[in-house]
């Protein structure tokens, strides 16, 4: 299971009408501003796979004054696959393979300084949250930006809560060890 299915996202963007790879990449990056921008190579490879699997088909070419570009459109099968995917429950995945979690556990196991790490990581998280909040509250921010910033902020906030609880647990644990 992929964290975000580029295949289905591109299929979703094709629902509004035929489009070419360059336009799909541009619209993807606009709709998912906090996601990593798509590479052109990935867009074209994914489109070719969608065609191979019968989910999209070539819809002629469009020059529009520039270089000739292949247009793609979704097939009926593609629309059905998109509806199936959009309604499919995603596993409520706890992100226990997260780097922060791994570093804290390894630090505890190896006698490192997890509290110092947590403090510094917390400051970095807060800095990123301030940046995202500034993006979100800028006058004229569009819905995609709001949704994307909200999603990122809530996940960073979840990390922060875990870090705060862990720091408190470490303090309690240290106190217990010291008084033992």
């Amino acid at each position, binding site marked *: 299971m992929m964290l975000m299915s580029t295949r289905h996202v591109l299929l979703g963007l094709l629902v509004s009408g035929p489009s070419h790879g360059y336009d799909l990449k541009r619209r993807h990056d606009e709709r998912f501003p906090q996601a990593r921008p798509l590479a052109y190579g990935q867009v074209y490879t994914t489109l070719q796979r969608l065609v191979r699997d019968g989910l999209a088909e070539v819809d002629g070419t469009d020059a529009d004054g520039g270089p000739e570009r292949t247009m793609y459109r979704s097939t009926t099968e593609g629309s059905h696959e998109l509806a199936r995917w959009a309604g499919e429950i995603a596993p409520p995945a706890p992100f226990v393979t997260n780097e922060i979690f791994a570093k804290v556990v390894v630090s505890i196991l190896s006698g490192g300084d997890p509290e*110092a790490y947590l*403090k*510094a990581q917390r400051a970095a998280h807060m800095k990123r*949250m*301030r940046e995202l*909040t500034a993006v979100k*509250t800028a006058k004229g921010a569009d819905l995609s930006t709001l949704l994307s910033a909200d999603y990122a902020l809530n996940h960073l906030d979840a990390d922060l809560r875990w870090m*705060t609880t862990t720091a408190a647990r470490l303090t309690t644990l240290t106190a217990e060890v010291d008084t033992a």
Partner: protein
Amino acid sequence: MNNGENAVPLLAARDLAKTHGRTQALRGASAELRAGEILAVTGASGSGKSTLLHCLAGIVRPDAGSVTYGGERLDRLPEKRLSGLRRGDFGVVFQFGQLIPELTALDNVALPLMLAGSSRGDAQARAGEWLERFGVRGQAGLRPGEMSGGQAQRTSLARALVTGPKVVFADEPTGALDSLASEQVMTALVHTARDSGTAVLLVTHDAQVAAYADREVRLSDGAVVPTGVTA
């Protein structure tokens, strides 16, 4: 706006200690607020956040340490002068807005102006403008009990800012609100503070609310936690 590390602070607390009964709320806490800056004071329940706000706002006097406002020792000012300062230079918002339940939103916001000597007509006209800024002009004729929590809190913010204070103290201003109402209140506060150059000292336990600030001071057991990283 953040005025840089070297700017002279508008308000500064140094090594504050304060005990409530047998509980030591502050143990050497220090913090600075620069002109026009939005500063978040965060920490767990009982970490001393609200006590620090109360000391900085001149609501309570610290047992030890100093509070300086515009170069003057706030903690040594006589009560009469302190209360004049609180009315003129400071605005305060609490978790539950503490609006006067018998008055309409318009009269709640007009009240500080009337106490400062404005006529009822002038005060109401300016109050209306401030309700407009906070997007609650349509609720001007409602009493606090007839408004949603978010509308009441935006009215409280209008009341805190209507006199043109240099500093607004906000103690968990979104603590009783859902996430969207909280966002509306914070966005309104931040935009208005930035536009008017008002400094804000924001006490919150919520990281998403603290993220509206330029900077964060984190308290634990009544003292500031060094982060080791410049915010």
